[in-house]
């Protein structure tokens, strides 16, 4: 099954029973994902143009559509679905870290801005 070439063995097929075996989506799945993404693009633009539920709901809906799109891309295009548990862990990790960071820095909203010298005219400049 393998032959040498420049110091490498060439493997012609992987072992489906291996714990690290990666399955690949079919062409059909790719196309379905693509059209789902386009439909979601139309949805998000239509929501913006034709509805208004107030700022809070609008952003939640827009982000929900965006997250769904990102989920489809990660799952099908980036093939986390067919990947191993380790790949899944890694893929989810980044987004969890991002959410953590977001939560941790949320308190910026409650902080008072401290003026630094140089940002305002000093009294002697104005007198």
């Amino acid at each position, binding site marked *: 099954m*393998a032959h040498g070439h420049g110091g490498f063995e060439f493997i012609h097929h992987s*072992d489906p029973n291996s714990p690290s075996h990666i399955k690949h989506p079919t062409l059909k799945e790719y196309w379905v994902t693509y059209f789902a993404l386009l439909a979601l693009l139309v949805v998000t633009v239509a929501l*913006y143009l034709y509805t208004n539920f107030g700022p809070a709901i609008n952003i939640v809906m827009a982000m929900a559509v965006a997250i769904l799109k990102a989920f489809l*891309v990660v799952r099908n*295009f980036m093939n986390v679905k067919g990947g191993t548990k380790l790949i899944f862990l*890694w893929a989810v990790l980044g987004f969890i870290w*991002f959410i953590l960071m977001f939560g941790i820095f949320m308190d910026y909203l409650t902080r008072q801005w401290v003026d630094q010298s140089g940002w305002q*005219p000093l009294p002697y400049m104005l*007198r």
Partner: protein
Amino acid sequence: MSLRRMQSATSKPHGDGHAHDHHHGAPQPLSPQFEDIDQQNESYIVGMWTFLVTEIMFFGALFFTYSLYRTLYFDAWVDAHKFLDILWGTLNTFILLTSSLTMVLAVWAAQQGKKWLMISMLAVTILCSFGFLGIKYIEYSAKFEEKLFPGKNFDYVTANRMYKEHHGAGHVKGVAESPATADEAHGDESHTDDSHAGEAKAEESHSETASHGEAGHGDGEHGDGGHGNKLHGKTEIGMLMSKKTNFDNQPKEGFNGMMAEPTQAIALANTDREAQKEAARGRRAQLFFSVYFAMTGLHGVHVLVGILMMSVIIWMRVVDHIAVKDYMPTELVGLYWHFVDIVWIFLFPLMYLIS
């Protein structure tokens, strides 16, 4: 040979070369440090995802910055986003989604060992990227022309006037008739310096304008009547000093003057309050465009890097380099490209669809 290698060698007693797994048509070179090809593939992908995790944090900080200022200055965000053309944004999203599809098709072709299909799919992906960057170029040029690039040339009043001339008044959703356009004859106060001194200057010039009964102050945003450009020079400081405005009694203003909306109007006439408000509006809009250019600019750089990587893959495949007989390099560039796509998926509603 390790145990796993021996097992996989014995469990698949196919001949050399002609055995075609329906997933993996193309042979993959196995590096000696890996147990088997599955472990190698998994390691490559995990390695790429590790990089992508750092990229998520990289963009994440900018997304956080965006959310913070959007929450604090939501009105300014709504007002400033009207300058972004939703048509271009939608078209760009469509182009990037399509390029993601052609990218997975290229990965699929690489897995099947279809050399020229893979090359042409990558070429289409590159074409899409250039389309994306071309549209970005058109959008950026418009922003430069409208004086919306953050910096000393940022001029929100001019931008609003140009917007009104091109689009008519207030037909964009969520954007009320902006107060700046009503007052657009005074171009000068929109020069939003970062310092408070600049702001004070602007106010003073405004009040000067008011006291002259607005004579000779046309809509030229730089040639301010008879004063000319000297207004920015010593003359103005002289006027400023002669005013003897008691700035010490003014309330503390917030972060870099961004929160400036005077609560006391001790030495300030009503028009000065308006001018101050307007200057604050300009600064907040400038903040929006700072975030806009930082985020879309960084994303654009990623698109450029993607183009570079895809070109390298194409070139290596054309010359039949051993590394790209394996589908993995294409797969990894694909992962990167989809990540760039995801960033845009979030940037698009956040920048273009604020309401």
